[in-house]
């Protein structure tokens, strides 16, 4: 019980104070929900000497919507995402994704910001973030800066965050007045599990498509070749099969404790077809309700 690593704990009340603390100490970790960090300190790989709890920073709380952009504060939990009316209205696929994160008690604490900062390949948020070209805002010793989703994930558990920076919010621009999207997660069993494969599809006016994959490469990715293939067309059986064939070169799944790479590759194709079909139906105002399990 408990863990061996000793560390100091600070709970700043302002963003500048938080950044000062991170700058002043050498081996620091940021604590929000703690559902990743606490596990990582217990078992390694994390071994901070100083933990900075950012839950006192009220400027990082809350979800807002203005100028056609949804802003999710760093302290927003997955449960809060699921309860947000504005998220339901403009980005229902975010809720579809949030509902599949771990279990209720974890969602009550875990934040989307923490999810994309831990940046494990099977993280739920990554593919949806890439789908919408979300932007990450950071605050650090040199002030504020923004990073685009495509530049955020740089490797397994690696992001564009720099020394002493704190992620303050994630912005999702509304891509068009009308959209249909679908997020599908495959786990070993119903209930709480990490993803074996993640697929996210977005259909936009003018026969535009965005396709994201997660858990099948070191980082979440947009399938540029598949998007180029589908652009401007109404997908029929042949086109979908051609798109599925492209998955062979779009993703790079590995074999690990949760699945073999051949299985992941096969399932990615099955899930892509289902996600695309559902997203198209939802774009037409029909299709399965967001949150309906499709695999």
């Amino acid at each position, binding site marked *: *019980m*408990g*863990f*061996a*690593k*000793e*560390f*100091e*704990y600070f*709970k700043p009340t302002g963003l500048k104070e938080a950044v000062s603390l991170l700058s002043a100490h050498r081996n620091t970790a940021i*604590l929000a929900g*703690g*559902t990743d960090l*606490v*596990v990582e*300190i*217990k*078992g390694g790989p994390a071994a901070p000497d100083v*933990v900075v*709890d950012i*839950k006192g920073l009220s400027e990082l709380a809350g979800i807002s919507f203005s100028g056609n952009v949804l802003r999710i504060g760093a302290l927003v939990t997955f*449960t809060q995402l699921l309860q947000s009316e504005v998220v339901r209205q403009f980005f229902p696929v975010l809720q579809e994704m949030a509902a599949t994160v*771990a*279990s*209720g*008690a*974890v969602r*009550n*604490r875990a934040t989307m910001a923490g999810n994309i900062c831990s940046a494990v390949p099977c993280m739920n948020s990554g593919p949806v973030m890439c789908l919408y070209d979300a932007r990450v805002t950071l605050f650090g010793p040199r002030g504020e800066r923004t990073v685009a989703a495509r530049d955020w994930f740089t490797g397994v558990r690696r992001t564009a965050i720099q020394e002493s920076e704190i992620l303050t919010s994630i912005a999702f621009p509304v891509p068009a007045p009308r959209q249909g999207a679908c997020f599908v997660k495959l786990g070993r069993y*119903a*209930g*709480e599990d990490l993803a074996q494969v993640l697929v996210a599809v977005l259909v936009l006016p003018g026969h535009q498509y965005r396709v994201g994959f997660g858990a099948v490469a070191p980082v979440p990715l947009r399938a540029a070749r598949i998007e180029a293939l589908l652009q401007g067309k109404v997908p029929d059986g042949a086109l979908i099969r051609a798109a599925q064939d492209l998955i062979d070169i779009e993703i790079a799944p590995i074999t690990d404790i949760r699945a073999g790479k051949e299985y992941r590759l096969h399932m990615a194709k099955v899930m892509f077809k289902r996600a695309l079909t559902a997203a198209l139906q939802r774009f037409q105002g029909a299709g399965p309700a967001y949150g309906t399990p499709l695999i």
Partner: protein
Amino acid sequence: MLYEITFILNGEERRLGVQPNETLLDVLRRKLGITSPKVGCERGDCGACTVKLNGLLVKSCLILAVEVNGREVTTIEGLMAKGLTPLQEMFMAKNSFQCGYCAPGMILAADDLLLRNPDPSDHQIKEALAGNLCRCTGYEPIIEAIKAVAANTKASAGQTRGGNNE
């Protein structure tokens, strides 16, 4: 370094010193005599450590004790302070636990579900219990107990409404 925390535990104010690397689970069990939350996986997967923090279901193995300063923690000892709850009675009636290790967490999760959704479907019950593992019962008697409590609550609400109409 010892940090002093003050928080409400099952309705009572408690004050004590904790190390930053003590989890809420540690402190509840070893310093405060609250042994209902159990040590299972210590990774937030099994749910044996489940408690409520400011009314929200959480995994106490993932929370540092310092984080509950100024907050409210509720465990099953608190829920049953005035006697066994309907869920506890029904768990006994339906044989919903064997070794009992998962039971406190399971009952808290069920309590949380019924507060949010008094008439849950089977699917919603299973979803709500997704973070609580049981090695003994196969889950069916747990689900039956929850359904029975929900049905009883619905029935007595119906009776009350009927009474008012007369």
